[in-house]
């Protein structure tokens, strides 16, 4: 199914915002990522055709920006800021705890495909560290207990929505 079939309205909305349609590349990449979990080769090709640019240009943009993924990632993308201000408030230990809890290293995805953890640069929540984002939504003033609870809740959510998934 092409993006234009499933997200026509959103795509047209973004195209209408700019005098040059190439500007819509970033919002369209986000749409592709929402639809497929990551930005597939086919989606890049479709976006290139929609915007009248070469697919090389699309790939260049995908590669440049940290929030675009051209490979499958976990259903829940956990960003943990371990930059200086957060590190001064225990973020590195916090990240280590989350990784141990999930049995993976930063940058890795759990074998069941549910979680990817990334240690990221400053995300603008230094005053509420440790901070974590789940699919770009903030969870602030975190501690190990809250993280454990959040991970359990997200696991339960996956089970509820995908009962066929075996662990």
């Amino acid at each position, binding site marked *: 199914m092409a993006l234009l079939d499933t997200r026509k309205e959103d795509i047209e909305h973004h195209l209408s*915002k*700019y*005098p*040059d349609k*190439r*500007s*819509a*590349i*970033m*919002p369209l*990449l*986000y749409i592709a990522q929402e639809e497929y979990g990551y930005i597939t080769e086919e989606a890049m090709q479709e976006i290139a055709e929609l*915007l009248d*640019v070469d697919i090389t*240009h699309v790939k*260049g*943009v995908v590669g*440049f*920006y*940290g*929030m*675009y993924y051209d490979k499958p990632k976990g259903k829940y993308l956990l*960003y943990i800021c371990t*930059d*200086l*201000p957060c*590190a*001064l*408030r225990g973020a590195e230990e916090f990240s280590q705890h989350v990784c141990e809890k999930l049995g993976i290293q930063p940058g890795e995805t759990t074998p069941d495909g549910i979680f990817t953890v990334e240690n*990221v*640069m*400053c*995300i*603008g*929540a*230094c*005053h*509420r*560290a440790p901070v974590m*984002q789940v699919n*770009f*939504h*903030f969870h602030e003033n975190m501690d190990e207990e809250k993280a454990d609870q959040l991970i359990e809740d997200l696991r339960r959510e996956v089970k509820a929505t995908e009962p066929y998934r075996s662990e």
Partner: protein
Amino acid sequence: MAHILLRELDIPNIKDIDVYLAHEGYQGLRKAIAEHTPDEVIDIVKASGLRGRGGAGFPTGVKWGFVPKDVFPKYVAVNADESEPGTFKDRQLMENNPHQVLEGALICAYAIQAEAVYIYIRGEYWDIADWLDEAIEKARARGFIGENILGSGWSCEIYTHRGAGAYICGEETALLESLEGKRGHPRLRPPFPASVGLYGKPTVINNVETLANLPYILDKGAEAYRQFGTEGSPGTKIFCLSGHVNNPGNYELPFGGETTLRKLIFELGGGTRSGKPVKGILPAGASGAILPATDEVLDTPLDYESLRPFGSSLGSASLIILDESVNMAWAANKMIHFFSHESCGQCTPCREGTYWLRRLYERLERGEADLYDVETMKNIAAQMLGKSICALGDFATNPVLGTIQHFGEDYEAVLGGDGSGDASPDEKEAAATEAAAD
């Protein structure tokens, strides 16, 4: 003192357009359009002395004045890419007082007669972009955005545009490149964006906090605005306080006068969490040189110029406080890691310089560096200064040179190595593996 910017602290729920309207909301825009020509608005902003809050402190009205009158269309880009480590002020404005930001952007757009405003907001502020979109629709429904705004004959749209995790896009020309659907590589200047900006058209790029000052200035006048702050740095500033303090957060204070690091750290910030003395202060996030916490530094009234004698700058006032438990070489390593990650890769001195600095700091962290490596760090920094298109390469030298200058003993404390300056056997092996993988 009532707040000019963080007004939700005085007026709860000011993010609601009705509450905002009940408290002089959109009065600045109304007055600008009803009582002044676009040029007069520029003159008022010049007279107010408002300076850009993104870090450079350039006079806002002067920046607007560079825009040619006879070239159309024109654009406004709002820099909401807030990504400097230790900065979280624009976010609070957009979350809690979004209409003041929109009103400020509209005043700017009216002054230069722009036909569209693009709010470039960092992708990690995902929800905030959605809330801004809602606020835009509310403002449109009241006639502040769209066709023939307030009967002026002038039309303007506002759109949000999400970034995608690239610090460099906070640099204004990289932001424009990104808005044009490209990799965020800063442009060579001249020409400056005021004449050749977005899509090659005249463009003003202003920071969120800068714009949030404008409704007050247009509503109450330049003189009223100048009652706050100093002659050279008028108005109030949001100080972002983070790190080893009890009460981190945003604090809005007038420039100069009683606004000092001592007041921010000990009075408002409640001192350090550990109770240990403050060792160093990063006044401008990772981009400004570190300051040792001497009495002289702590008691200096803060404005755009006052930290210069100490070899640093106020930048966007992102104060990261470090107590005595911190080894400053470790802190520099964190910052170099940041710059190495965020260098866009366009200019060789910055791309390679930050890469090699990172390697040297990792060697230091492993206890394998010697004095020769510290000298190499300084040499690399010297080779980066002034040699790149944008300021990132320059900023990246600050953590290195600042910490070595003020906290050289911290480096000595972690030195190891055999004094030859050569790589350790482990490192040679790692380099060989890396080369083989390439």
